[in-house]
């Protein structure tokens, strides 16, 4: 099995120091529950340890992994090492909040075996950061990035967001420029998704903030891609950019390639042999179930072949790697559609693959509906 197909291990740290106003990830702010959660996680690891013999990547996400105290994080990694094996050269990623970054923390993370770090900067504009409910300032983010780049991590990623309330293309360009100055190996640039149930989602429902219109979305997206491509980043997925192919996030690519993955922690999702399942989105329920030896699973589905087909399409169309022609399966005749999409510059078909162009990435969600 090559590394690409090896399973990934995801661990969800469901704790944050404070809740950001746009965020709908599952996390809570009661950090006192960490010890109990760690115990439960150990139990879940024991339950799952034989599912896969060896992993190609680890991703410690959340939540805010850097909200954990050093000894807590140490226990967590000990547990991981005890129960799971990683292939040589496996990618070991951790998400970090700029506010939590300091030299000691970085050394500690390197010591724990992490070789990739993803910094949740989101913006360098203090007004934007405040409106998002982020803890840090633009300055703090720059300081953190400076430290990270010189810390010995040779794979650093920066998360940024656009399409924010009151954000102009100029202010977005400024944030991008400030990030690129540090020459991170990888950038994730997300358009803000307004999620119902979040404070920002409620504001939008009440009409107190207006989501950006389709034309602006379009301009932001193209601008981002052009800007970063000019800086020699590869635009390899809708929202992801890497300086070199080896800096493309190995772990995330497993999701898009439909490689198997195991997710541990509340709200984590897993996928193996056409079965997808997910854990309860509640720390207490998660701990409760595991304390009586029950798997903390709340949903499980077995994919039909048609569902597999659809997944291959919509995941593939998000990436520049594209979709295998064979993934179209049995459908009447894709030729006229493909011809039209090629003619209009949405995809290119070559060497048995349908590859979305930049214009194609922009409408990636609609493409599977055509086949």
């Amino acid at each position, binding site marked *: 099995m090559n590394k690409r197909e090896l399973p990934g291990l995801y661990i969800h740290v469901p704790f944050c120091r404070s809740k950001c106003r746009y965020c709908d990830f599952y996390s809570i702010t009661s950090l006192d529950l960490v010890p109990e959660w760690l115990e439960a996680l150990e139990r879940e690891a024991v339950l799952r340890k034989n599912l896969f013999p060896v992993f190609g990547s680890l991703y410690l996400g959340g939540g805010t992994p850097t909200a954990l105290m050093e000894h807590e994080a140490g226990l967590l990694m000990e547990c991981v090492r005890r129960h799971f094996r990683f292939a040589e050269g496996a990618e070991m990623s951790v998400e970090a909040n700029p506010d939590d970054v300091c030299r000691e923390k970085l050394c500690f993370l390197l010591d724990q075996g992490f070789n990739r770090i993803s910094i949740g900067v989101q913006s360098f504009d203090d007004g934007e950061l405040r409106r998002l409910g982020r803890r840090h300032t633009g300055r703090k983010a720059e300081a953190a990035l400076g430290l990270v780049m010189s810390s010995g991590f040779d794979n650093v990623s920066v998360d940024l967001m656009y399409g924010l309330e009151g954000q102009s293309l100029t202010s977005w360009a400024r944030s991008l420029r400030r990030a690129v100055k540090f020459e991170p190996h990888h950038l994730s640039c997300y358009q803000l998704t307004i999620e119902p149930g979040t404070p920002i989602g409620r504001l939008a429902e009440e009409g107190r903030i207006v989501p950006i219109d389709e034309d602006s979305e379009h301009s932001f997206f193209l601008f981002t891609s052009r800007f970063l491509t000019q800086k020699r980043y590869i635009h390899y997925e809708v929202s992801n950019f890497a300086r070199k192919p080896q800096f493309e996030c190995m772990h*995330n690519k497993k999701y898009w390639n439909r490689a198997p993955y195991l997710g541990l922690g509340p709200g984590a*999702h897993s996928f193996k042999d056409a079965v997808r399942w997910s854990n309860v989105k509640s720390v207490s329920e998660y701990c409760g179930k595991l304390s009586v030896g029950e798997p903390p699973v709340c949903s499980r589905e077995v994919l039909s072949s048609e*569902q597999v087909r*659809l997944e291959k399409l919509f995941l593939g169309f998000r990436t520049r790697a594209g979709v295998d022609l064979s993934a179209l399966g049995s459908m009447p005749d894709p030729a006229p559609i493909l011809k039209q999409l090629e*003619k209009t510059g949405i995809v290119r078909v070559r060497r048995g693959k349908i590859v979305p162009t930049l214009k194609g*990435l922009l*409408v990636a*969600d609609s493409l599977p509906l055509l086949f």
Partner: protein
Amino acid sequence: MANIRNFSIIAHIDHGKSTLADRLIQYAGLVPERQFRDQMLDTMDIERERGITIKSQTVTLPYTAPDGEEFELNLIDTPGHVDFSYEVSRALASCEGVLLLVDASQGVQAQTLANLYAAMEHDLTIIPVINKIDLPAADVDMVREQMEGELGLDSDLAVLCSAKEGRGIEDVLEAIVERIPPPSGSSQNPLSALIFDAHYDPFRGTIVSCRVFEGSVQPGDVIRFMSNGAVYRVEEVGIFKITREPRKRLSAGDVGYIISGVKTLSDTRVGDTITLDSKPTDSPLPGFKEAKPVVFSSIYPISSDDYLSLSDALEKYKLNDASLVYQKDSSVALGQGFRCGFLGLLHLEIVQERLEREYDQSIIMTVPSVEYRFALDDGSTVVVDNPQYYPEAIRIRVAEEPYIKASIILPERYMGAVMKLCMDRRAVNPRFNYPSAGRVEIVFDMPLAEVVFDFYDRLKTITQGYGSLDYDLIGYRESSLVKLDILVNGEKVDALSLIVHRDRAREWAVQVCDRLKEEIPRHQFKIAIQGAIGGKIIARSTVNAFRKDVTAKCYGGDISRKRKLLEKQKKGKKRMKMVGSVMIPQGAFVAVLRSDNE
């Protein structure tokens, strides 16, 4: 038999037929009060949603006259819309009399006249009824005058009622038993029963509705359908009392149903005569004139795998709608399907809806057309109701299109606007009658094609509901025709082609392009829509591409949710047809003919 009365309620649309039927049903105590609902006989969902009757419905009511005499009344509620006139004509063939309703505020309208003439053709007793006398705008004297002047009826004989408020119901009932003659015929004679309707029941097979004119029929009898000689053993006979109610036998004069395990759908023909195999009658009943379709359109399954299922559904549907005619058809864009003839555009819409709802079909209907006639250079003549078969232009010597005599009744004050509408629709040779004060009847010769599509709706809008239209085909007239092709992204879509008058071609082309622009959803790419005559583009429109449709994040936890959303969207797309690389919604083909008037 002397105590049976068979009658239909006929009127212009919305004059209150079904509401009057409600009151008669309630008077007879046929349904418990809590099961009662308005327009009880409009049983189909589409009828209730649209508030109109589409199918005639029969119901048998017991009635005790004030002098204690007991009657059995067979009532048939009929539709008023001109597209369903075939339902009326069949109902009339099973009756001895009619209630001719006139709305006291609207007065005599086009279908009042048309239905009156139909009843007179059948030699039926006519009871004029002035309904809705409760309305503030009711003008009984005016209506009486119109009855005398326009209908030639003795207005002293008119019964006044308010179906809504239940006023005058006894008078209506008395008039029915007093004036309508009982059926003639004898139960001793050989059986002769007219099939006037039928429907398919998955458990019981075909159930025929019939009027027995002579003889009698009961379970165990072997009956014969006279048109094709098919024989079946009768399982059950009965009458309609909202639901079917079995009886020991049906005898001369009765209206009811026969179930005889008929599984071969094509054996049952509406209009056929049923007789006894052992003791047949020598002469079948006259039956019905074939329905004469005026609008044609093809029906295709959205998924070509469903062709056989569609074929089966059409056969069953046809049992219950004798006015539909159809035959096989095929199209480059849409595959195998059926060419169908309809009595009008509303009829077409109803067929589409019923096939979808009652028979679970996902279908597409192509652009409707009337029937054109072409004399070709080799001396032959071809009749074309499908633009696909439009002859090569250079071979056409003479092109002809069907004309009608359109009669429009309206209050004088709308005359200017209506004249303009008609002139825009190529009406010629106007004639004016002034049947009663303040009212005009305009009679025009007009191409049928100009009327069937959206003329009626326009007329109603212009006259605020006071104008009504009736028409008769008067034959073919020479015309200058062209075939308008529609290209979607450069490809001709045969199912969207249209035969039009040369002078109106540009107008039509612009309309079709504009409508398609609204109907076709945005795609990933721009879609060019063009109208062309013989390769020359005469109109165009563009459906812009949508610019962005992609979520920012899609990681491990997002995949299931995202897939479910796509599955839902995919289901929605099932109602679209992929033509080349463009998804065309099911309704677009018919919608292109509808102009936006509002």
